[in-house]
């Protein structure tokens, strides 16, 4: 029977062959995207792991010759540079990954992207931060991305031991990533949930293509004595043949475009071509899973209809979905709302609190989708004045599960991405970089360690001599720990940052003249500090603040001067928000990934809907043809098709995005006490682009409508 099924699939005439090609092509697209998703997960995982390996965990001390290692962040024009300082303590010290030897004092290795930057930038702005000589470039194995700016600087052990955040390593490259595995799993899970589900829905839908025509053929076979089991085997074989061919084509497409895909900065940083790889398990899952899944889908779809020798017993109106489907959705929202003001202290506790709520909402959306579709369609049907709207609404109300199936993927994808983008936008808004052109953005400061008793005048003179620098001020440590952290003689406060209170000689000031969560202001009045004027100069120096004209050159030259003067900085000289903005940049990378998921999932939904449209047209070929012959304009039928697919899609998009923002708001309020910041227009633009792509794909099926409703259908079949 399998052999007979194979023969029917590949030698069953032109129609069978066309069907085979269409299904195989659809499966190829689905399988290709599935492979891209799996390879993308591996690539993201690899990128995260390599990034995390720049922050290794310390080994047990006192064993062998450890490698001394300190990782700090530096900045250049808003970009983060990862600076790794190392020192080999003996011949047995491990060599850092990606370089042939551990650099000695006065030697360093730089990443290819940083090499390019160093060559293109005046030395006073960047290269002077790394005195000595370059030994070469860092290999890919140590870099999160080809775009990563990384420098590995060599030191003596004594120098390295004095650096902040230093650790001793007896081995490198085998560290557990500093990022908790659950975080990586969560991120990967978000990608998987957002993209895998639509891909699987699409593959499932594609294999049901032309089901109606196929079922009539099976009825004819039943008439000549085929048993239901034999029919099931033939159907499964046919579906599997198309799926095997499609899967093979999907693999070919994946390997053909793998290099180009790696060059797309899905996470804000490009991948290395080798990052987009497939594990044997991935290959096995796709190579076996897709054809098996296709065969199962065909078998399941046949179980929904009873094929008797006298024909296909059409489905009667299925039982409508009930309102209880809303319960998980409501529970999920309630669960998230419960934790407002009750945030667990530990990160594990927070994961345990928020994850179930989000998962409940995701499950709730999928479960409630058909009920919502039915309610919406019934309302539309009762209010429809035009025949197209009436037919479309009745069809959706009649079988909302079928109507929702093709778009359930985008519901999840849009929910997941809306939550992510809502959270990311809010965090970025609260922690983003200073506004361009503001005094904040023109202020560079560096904190000094407690034992820094004074600042050489030559340093301040050098800073003030840099073109564009307007002030260079050493702020002293305030002995009053409850007040602002700095003290300064009133005469030393640069005019751009305010003045003293009337009558005061010494003021308590912020370490960079910018109070927490506020902006610099020339009208700010700093309170008087109870420190005698003569004692100020004897207090340790807390920070050096450089006021500039905001030009990149003046800021970077100042930063370079300060970096050289204080090479053991804990955190690099920075402009307000720069430290936070590197985190925000990382989040923006994820935002970009979320955008990719939106467009891809909507495109996939478009493909699923297109297949559903073609299937729906095949089922209603005769009544539609006869309607058209009776004078119904084709545009009415086109409108039916368009409404049937676009109305639920748009409704689902609105519900999913709305629920995503609700979930994001609940999470942000509970976890960070932030109010949701509405995403910028680019989010909506991305959604609109995705929806337009989806509609374009649906529109591509419309010519089928005209072709299959021609006059020949009027003749009795």
């Amino acid at each position, binding site marked *: 029977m399998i052999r007979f099924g194979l023969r029917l699939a590949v030698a069953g005439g032109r129609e069978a062959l066309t069907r085979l090609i269409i299904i195989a092509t659809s499966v190829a697209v689905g399988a290709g995207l599935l492979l891209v998703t799996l390879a993308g997960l591996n690539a993201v995982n690899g990128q995260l792991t390599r990034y995390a390996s720049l922050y290794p965990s310390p080994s047990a001390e006192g064993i062998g010759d450890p490698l001394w290692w300190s990782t700090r962040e530096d900045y250049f024009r808003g970009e983060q540079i990862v600076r790794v300082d190392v020192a080999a303590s003996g011949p047995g010290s491990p060599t850092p990954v990606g370089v042939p030897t551990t650099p000695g004092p006065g030697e360093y290795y730089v990443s290819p992207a940083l090499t390019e930057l160093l060559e293109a930038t005046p030395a006073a702005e960047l290269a002077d931060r790394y005195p000595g000589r370059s030994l070469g470039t860092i290999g890919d194995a140590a870099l999160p991305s080809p775009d990563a700016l990384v420098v590995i600087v060599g030191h003596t052990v004594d120098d390295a031991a004095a650096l902040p955040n230093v650790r001793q390593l007896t081995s490198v490259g085998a560290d557990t990533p500093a990022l908790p595995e659950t975080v990586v799993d969560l991120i990967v899970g978000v990608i998987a949930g957002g993209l895998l589900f639509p891909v699987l829905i699409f593959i499932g839908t594609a294999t049901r293509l032309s089901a109606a025509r196929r079922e009539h053929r099976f009825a004819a076979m039943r008439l000549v004595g085929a048993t239901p089991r034999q029919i099931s085997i033939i159907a499964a074989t046919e579906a599997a043949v198309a799926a095997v061919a499609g899967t093979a084509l999907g693999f070919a497409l994946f390997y053909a475009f793998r290099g180009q895909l790696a060059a797309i900065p899905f996470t804000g940083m490009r991948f290395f071509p080798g990052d987009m790889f497939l594990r044997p398990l991935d290959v096995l899952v796709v190579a076996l899973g897709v054809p098996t899944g296709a065969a199962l889908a065909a078998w399941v779809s046949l179980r929904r209809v009873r094929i008797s020798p006298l024909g296909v017993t059409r489905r009667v*109106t299925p039982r409508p979905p009930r309102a209880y489907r809303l319960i998980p959705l409501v529970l999920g929202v309630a669960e998230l709302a419960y934790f407002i003001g009750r945030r667990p202290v530990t990160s594990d506790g927070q994961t345990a609190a928020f994850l179930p709520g989000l998962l409940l909402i995701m499950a709730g959306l999928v479960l409630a989708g058909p009920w919502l579709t039915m309610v919406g369609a019934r309302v539309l049907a009762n209010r429809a004045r035009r025949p197209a709207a009436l037919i479309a609404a009745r069809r959706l109300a009649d079988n909302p599960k079928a109507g929702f199936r093709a778009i359930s993927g985008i519901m999840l994808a849009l929910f997941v991405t809306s939550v992510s983008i809502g959270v990311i936008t809010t965090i970025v808004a609260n922690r983003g970089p200073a506004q361009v052109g503001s005094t904040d953005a023109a202020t560079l400061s560096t904190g000094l360690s407690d034992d820094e008793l004074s600042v050489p005048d030559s340093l301040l003179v050098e800073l003030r001599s840099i073109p564009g620098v307007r002030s260079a001020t050493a702020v002293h440590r305030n002995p009053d720990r409850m007040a602002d952290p700095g003290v300064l003689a009133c005469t030393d406060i640069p005019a751009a940052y305010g003045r003293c209170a009337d009558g005061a000689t010494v003021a308590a000031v912020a370490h960079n003249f910018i109070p927490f969560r506020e902006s610099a202001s020339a009208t700010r009045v700093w309170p008087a500090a109870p420190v005698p004027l003569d004692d100020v100069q004897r207090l340790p120096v807390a920070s050096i603040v450089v006021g500039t004209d905001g030009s990149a050159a003046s800021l970077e030259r100042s930063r370079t001067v300060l970096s050289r003067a204080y090479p053991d900085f804990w955190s690099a000289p920075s402009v307000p928000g720069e430290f936070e903005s590197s985190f925000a940049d990382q989040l923006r990378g994820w935002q970009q990934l979320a955008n990719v998921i939106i467009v891809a999932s909507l495109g996939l939904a478009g493909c699923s809907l297109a297949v559903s449209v073609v299937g729906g047209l095949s089922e209603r070929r005769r009544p539609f043809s006869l309607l058209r012959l009776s004078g*119904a304009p084709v545009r009415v039928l086109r409108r039916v098709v368009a409404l049937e697919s676009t109305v639920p899609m748009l409704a689902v998009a609105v519900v999913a995005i709305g629920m995503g923002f609700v979930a994001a708001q609940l999470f942000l309020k509970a976890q960070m006490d932030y109010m949701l910041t509405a995403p910028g227009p680019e989010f909506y633009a991305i959604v609109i682009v995705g929806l337009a792509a989806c509609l374009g794909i649906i529109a591509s099926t419309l010519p089928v409508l005209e072709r299959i409703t021609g006059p020949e259908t*009027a003749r009795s079949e």
Partner: protein
Amino acid sequence: MTIAIEARNVVFSFGQTPALRGASIAVDSGEIVAIMGASGSGKSTLLHCLAGILVPDSGEVLFDGARVDSMTEARRSSLRRDRFGFVFQFGQLVPELTTAENVALPLLLNGTRRAEALRKAHGWFERLGLEGLEHRRSGELSGGQAQRVALARGLVTGPEVLFADEPTGALDSLTGEQVMDLLVTAARAQGTTVILVTHEPRVAAYADREVIVRDGRVNAPDRIAS
């Protein structure tokens, strides 16, 4: 009597296969004509040419003094929608709509308000003995009931010509006769011209006149307009 619709020397081929080889027929207003013939004789093709569904390769089709064969597709569609009615052998009801909505569909397509369209549709349920079936779906009707709904749909706009292509072809003889009784009664009451394609003499007997199509020609046309 005035001629409602007429075909003159209509020739039509499906690719290389000729279906009509110069068929001519004229049907008076209010007349019920049965077109008979063996399978493949060209009777359905003739009906489709008369209704403006197919455009003849040569020859003329006239309705109300206008050349149907030279009209644009849009005008022919409008003609079919506004002035003709159709009943086919089977499968003409939109499965998702209720029977009442199916009957109201041509009115909705004409721009009639929904409430008005449904009110007119309900009037036909009583006339055709379909009371109580207004909210059923096509899948929940017997063959005879579905054809009566289709008949109501074909007549609801008050068409000048009703084209019926094997309207009882999928029904048993008793049910077929009931449908034909209703069709003829309703058409006569409205003064609708009926062109009926059938191969069953018992169905053709309901007509005022029978014409035979053989090898793509109408035998013994009893009247051709001069």
